[in-house]
C-alpha cells in the first residue's frame, strides 16, 4: 500500500493534535509557531496526496482495523484531493496574514484560542470532505459548527455575540435536519457507509420512493441552511460582517464549501442520479440557486457597510454553485466545483483586503472610502482584481467560471437560463465598480490625501498577493483544472 494513502488521515490528526497542544503553552509566539507549522505540514501532505491520486486513481482507506460496513472508510479521489489542496492553501495564507492583523481585533489572552479554533475548524472541514461514512460526517459537521461560531465570537464586542448566537441557532437547526435524514437512511438500509447504502437504495427504490424523497429533502434543507442557499442565508451577513478579517475570510471561503461538497457526495454517491433524476429536488435547487444569484446581488447593492456588501456577494456566488448542481449534468457539476475554487481564492482575497482597509483607516462605510486609492494603492489594487474577477473580466478566474456555466447551460439545452448568468454578472458590476472608481478617480476625493500614507508594508500584503496570484493563474490556465475535475467526477459516483 503506497505511503500517500495515509496522508489524509495524518493531515486531520496533525491539525487536531496541534489544536489541543496550543493551550498548554500560553504564549502567543508558541501558539503561532505550532499553528502555522501544522498548517504547513498539512499543506505539503495534501499536495503529495493529490499527486499520488492523479497517478494511481481513487482509493479507499480504512480507518482502524475494520473494513466497511463495520468500520469507517475514507474515499480519496481526485476531487477530494483537489479540495484538500484548496483548503490548506487558503487556510495557510489566512493564517500567515493573521500573524500581522489579529492582534488589533482581539485581546491578547484570546489569540492562542483563535489559532486552536482555526486548526480545529480546518481539520473538521477536511474530515467532512474525506469521509465516506454518514455519521462520521455528522460528527465533523458539529465540530466545525462549534469552531466556526467560536472564531466569530473570539472578538468580544456585543454585535459579535448576537451574530454568533444567530449563527449557532440556525446552524443547529440544520444539523438536526441532517441527523434526521441520516436516521431515515439508516432505517431504510441498515448501513451508514455511502456505497453500501447506495446498493440497497437502488434495489428498494420502487416501493420506498416517498421515504427517499423525504430523506433527500431533509438533506437539502439541512445542508442548505449551513451553506447559505438563498432563503436560508439570513445568518450569513451578520456573522461574516462582524467577525475579525481573518475569520471572515475563512468562513466565507472554506466553511460554506465543505457542506456543498458533502451535499454533492450525498446526491451522487449515496442516492445516485438514477434516483435523484426522478425526484423534483434538483429543479428546486436550480430555482433557488438562480433566485439567490440575483437576489444576493440586489441586496448587496443596497448595503452601505463594505464588509456587509462583500458578505451578500458571497450569497450570490454560492447561488452559482447551487445553480450548477441543479443543472444535473456532468458539465454543470464540473462548473460548480470550478466555481468553488474560484470563489474560495477570490473571496478570501476580498475579505482580507477589505479588513485591511477597515483596520488601517477605521472607516467601515463605502461612502467614507472615497480617494482611498491614493492612500492605500496596493490594497485597493488587490480588491480591484478580486472584484473584477467576480464581475467576469477575462484573464481572471471568475470569467472562466461563468464561461463554464454558460457552456453547461447550452449543453443541457436550457438556453433561457443563460439570461440569469448574464444578469447576475451585470449586477455584480453595479456594486463593485463604485468602490473601485471612487477609490482611484475623481479629483475632489483625491485632494488632501497623501500617497501611501496608511498603506500596509509590502511584507504584510504578501499572503493576499499569493491568493490573488491564484486567481490570475486559474484565469489564465483554467482549462487544466477543468479537465482534472472532469476526470475526477466518475469516481464520485
Amino acid at each position, binding site marked *: 500500500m503506497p505511503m500517500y494513502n495515509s496522508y489524509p488521515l495524518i493531515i486531520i490528526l496533525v491539525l487536531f493534535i496541534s489544536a489541543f497542544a496550543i493551550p498548554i503553552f500560553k504564549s502567543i509566539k508558541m501558539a503561532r509557531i505550532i499553528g502555522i507549522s501544522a498548517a504547513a505540514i498539512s499543506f505539503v501532505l495534501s499536495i503529495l496526496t493529490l499527486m499520488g491520486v492523479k497517478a494511481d486513481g481513487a482509493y479507499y482507506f480504512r480507518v482502524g482495523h475494520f473494513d466497511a460496513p463495520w468500520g469507517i472508510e475514507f474515499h480519496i479521489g481526485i476531487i477530494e484531493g483537489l479540495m484538500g489542496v484548496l483548503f490548506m492553501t487558503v487556510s495557510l495564507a489566512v493564517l500567515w496574514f493573521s500573524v500581522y492583523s489579529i492582534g488589533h481585533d482581539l485581546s491578547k489572552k484570546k489569540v492562542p484560542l483563535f489559532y486552536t479554533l482555526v486548526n480545529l475548524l480546518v481539520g473538521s472541514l477536511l474530515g467532512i470532505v474525506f469521509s465516506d461514512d454518514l*455519521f462520521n460526517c*455528522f*460528527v465533523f459537521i*458539529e465540530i466545525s*459548527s*462549534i469552531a466556526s*461560531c467560536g472564531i466569530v*465570537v473570539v472578538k468580544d464586542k*456585543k*454585535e459579535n*455575540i*448576537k451574530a*454568533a*448566537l*444567530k449563527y*449557532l*441557532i440556525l446552524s*443547529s*437547526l440544520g444539523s*438536526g435536519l441532517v*441527523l*434526521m435524514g441520516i*436516521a431515515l437512511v*439508516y*432505517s431504510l438500509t441498515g448501513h451508514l457507509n455511502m456505497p453500501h447504502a447506495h446498493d440497497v437504495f437502488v434495489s428498494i427504490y420502487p416501493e420506498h420512493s416517498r421515504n427517499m424523497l423525504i430523506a433527500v429533502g431533509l438533506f437539502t434543507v439541512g445542508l442548505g441552511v449551513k451553506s447559505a442557499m438563498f432563503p436560508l442565508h439570513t445568518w450569513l451577513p451578520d456573522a461574516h460582517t462582524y467577525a475579525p478579517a481573518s475569520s471572515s475570510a475563512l468562513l466565507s471561503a472554506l466553511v460554506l464549501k465543505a457542506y456543498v461538497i458533502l451535499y454533492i457526495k450525498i446526491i451522487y454517491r449515496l442516492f445516485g442520479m438514477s434516483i435523484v433524476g426522478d425526484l423534483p429536488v434538483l429543479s428546486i435547487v436550480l430555482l433557488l440557486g438562480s433566485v439567490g444569484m440575483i437576489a444576493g446581488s440586489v441586496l448587496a447593492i443596497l448595503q452601505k457597510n463594505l464588509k456587509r456588501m462583500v458578505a451578500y456577494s458571497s450569497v450570490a456566488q454560492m447561488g452559482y454553485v447551487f445553480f450548477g448542481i441543479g443543472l444535473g449534468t456532468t458539465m454543470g457539476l464540473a462548473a460548480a466545483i470550478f466555481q468553488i475554487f474560484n470563489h474560495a481564492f477570490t473571496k478570501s482575497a476580498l475579505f482580507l483586503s477589505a479588513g485591511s482597509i477597515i483596520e488601517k483607516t477605521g472607516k*467601515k462605510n463605502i461612502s467614507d472610502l472615497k480617494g482611498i486609492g491614493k492612500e492605500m494603492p496596493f490594497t485597493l489594487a488587490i480588491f480591484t482584481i478580486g472584484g473584477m474577477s467576480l464581475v467576469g473580466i477575462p484573464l481572471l478566474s471568475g470569467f472562466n467560471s461563468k464561461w463554464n456555466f454558460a457552456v453547461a447551460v447550452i449543453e443541457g439545452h436550457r438556453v433561457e437560463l443563460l439570461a440569469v448568468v448574464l444578469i447576475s454578472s451585470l449586477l455584480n458590476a453595479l456594486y463593485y465598480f463604485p468602490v473601485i472608481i471612487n477609490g482611484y478617480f475623481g479629483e475632489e476625493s483625491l485632494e488632501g490625501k497623501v500617497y501611501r500614507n496608511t498603506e500596509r508594508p509590502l511584507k504584510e500584503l504578501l499572503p493576499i498577493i499569493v491568493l490573488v496570484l491564484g486567481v490570475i493563474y486559474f484565469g489564465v490556465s483554467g482549462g487544466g483544472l477543468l479537465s482534472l475535475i472532469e476526470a475526477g467526477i466518475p469516481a464520485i459516483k
Partner: protein
Amino acid sequence: MGHLLINYYETGAIILFGVGFVTLLAHGNLIKKIIGMNIMDTAVFLFFIAKGYIAGNEAPIIRSAKAANGYVNPVPTALMLTGIVVAVSITAFALALTIRVYEKYGTIDLNEIIKMGGE
C-alpha cells in the same frame, strides 16, 4: 393508521421532532429556543434507538455463561451516545453565549436584540 400505532416509538419521535422544530423557530426567548433544539435532538435520538430495538430480545451484555435468545442491535445506541455528547456540548456553548448576550444587551429576546442593532 394502523402502521402509525404499531410503530408508536417512531410516531412519537416524529411528533416530538415537529414540536422541537416549531419551538426553535417560533419563540423569541433564547432559552426557549435552546430548549426546542434539545427537544428536536432528543426526538432524533429516540427515532434512531427505536429502529434498533427488536421486541423480545435482551440488552447486548453477557450476564452469565448462558447466552440469551437474541440481542438488541447495539450500533444505534453507541452512535447516539456520541450524538448526546454533541448535543450537550452545543447546548452548553449556546447557554454560555446567552449569558454574555444578557450581560451586554440586558434582554434575552432575540427579536428585541435584532431591533437594538448597534455598530
